[in-house]
């Protein structure tokens, strides 16, 4: 893997700029403006927020072009959009539309149940979800310039994101303690390329920024992700499924910026109004778990 090529540096460069920030799911220009006014570092343009995808069912696809364009015209911050896992054509269309980042996302219905997109072939940077280090490294091997946890999108429940963040950090720490010959076995176990396993063992971190996503509903949830080693936070349904989206969005931005300061977190947590209702993830069937999608 060549992490020093100009193309890859420029992709990871944008991910670096988004660190310490909040990326918000939006479905139209009005929501995008609310997100930008609240201090979002980027918005994710999509047709329905994950909670609605979950409730309504059906095939979830890339958002309509008009919707994404409307959002791109409404704000000056970067605009991301989702394509289905393995849907090379949707990704090419989003690249031609000049979105700033593509999320190859388990929130949409997968188009390929074996393969993800070979992302090195694209000039637009990609972000991909993961549940553990092996999955993260496979996505990086395919060319992802940013990794996020999957969490459980649209659940309003942080438990899965915590599970995935902890899994990645635990496996990262473990690799730094292994002898060179043990890294070969670790590579086999993680189902990840040895070269990347060796890189991670030497540096003790992923070669691309590592963000959190899936189930963030409160400023405290966002701060928790930062405490567990996330470098930024995606918020999906948690904002626009709450009583006062503008207020909650601004509070989550403040919580991510000041996650080390309990007094600031206390201030950010006041007068938020009602949050999204949320789901007990342990009651979902495996088929209902979006985080099981992706390979």
């Amino acid at each position: 893997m060549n992490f020093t090529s100009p193309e890859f540096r420029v992709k990871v460069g944008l991910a670096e700029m988004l660190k310490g920030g909040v990326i918000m799911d939006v479905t139209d220009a009005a929501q995008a403006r609310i997100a930008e006014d609240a201090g979002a570092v980027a918005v994710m343009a999509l047709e329905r927020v994950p909670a609605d995808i979950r409730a309504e069912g059906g095939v979830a696809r890339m958002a309509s072009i008009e919707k994404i364009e409307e959002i791109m015209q409404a704000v000056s911050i970067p605009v991301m959009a989702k394509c289905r896992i393995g849907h090379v054509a949707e990704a090419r269309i989003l690249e031609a539309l000049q979105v700033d980042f593509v999320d190859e996302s388990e929130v949409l219905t997968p188009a390929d149940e074996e393969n993800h997109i070979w992302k090195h072939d694209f000039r637009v940077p990609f972000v991909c979800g993961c549940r553990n280090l092996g999955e993260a490294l496979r996505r990086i091997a395919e060319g992802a310039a940013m990794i996020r946890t999957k969490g459980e999108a649209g659940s309003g429940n942080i438990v899965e994101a915590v599970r995935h963040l902890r899994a990645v950090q635990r496996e990262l720490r473990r690799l730094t303690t292994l002898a060179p010959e043990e890294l070969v076995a670790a590579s086999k176990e993680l189902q990840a390329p040895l070269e990347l396993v060796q890189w991670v063992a030497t540096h003790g971190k992923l070669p691309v920024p590592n963000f959190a996503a899936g189930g963030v509903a409160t400023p405290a949830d966002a701060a928790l992700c930062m405490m567990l080693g996330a470098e930024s936070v995606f918020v999906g349904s948690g904002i626009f499924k709450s009583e006062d989206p503008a207020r909650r969005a601004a509070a989550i931005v403040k919580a991510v910026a000041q996650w080390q300061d309990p007094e600031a977190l206390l201030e950010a947590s006041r007068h938020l109004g009602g949050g999204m209702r949320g789901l007990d993830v342990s009651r979902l069937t495996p088929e209902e778990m979006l985080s099981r999608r992706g390979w």
Partner: protein
Amino acid sequence: MVGVLALQGDFSAHRQALAERGLVSCEVRKPQHLEGLTGLVLPGGESTTMLKLLDAFGLQQPLVEAITAGLPVLATCAGIILLAEEVRHPSQPSLGLLRVAVERNAYGRQLASTVAQLQVTDELPTPSLEGVFIRAPRVVRVGEGVKVLATRGEDPVLVRQGAILAATFHPELSPASPVVALFADMVRRKS
């Protein structure tokens, strides 16, 4: 001790670049973090987010006072947008401490982001310089007392006004950047 504004953006990359030049740094998230600094970095990131958080955490005025008092500053990308006296595309408020006008996202969206070779003037003692441009702004007007240290084609991309060194690109993302070295010299001379 060099403070790196850490409300949002690539502040970790800056701290790493400073460490490679032998400078100890700390993160600035509150007004009290500005006390006793010998230099200040305004990193890349989203300027709209930083402006809101500067205001929310009461950092704007203390920052203006520290910079006006002559603290050496390195500002990159969003940093130059924060410092500029005029911001266009769209127009937005700023600290107004650097006599330039900048246009945000002037080269286009992420697909226009690139690593470019720059032309250096005599003010910067280095034979070659690369610039990592990420959704970069463009300096569209250079005011009195502002020296241009490097250009990309016709565009000024690295400028200096007294103790302020400001770039539209990201020297912190280039290995061993002469721009970070120059800033380290400015900090050492001052302290």
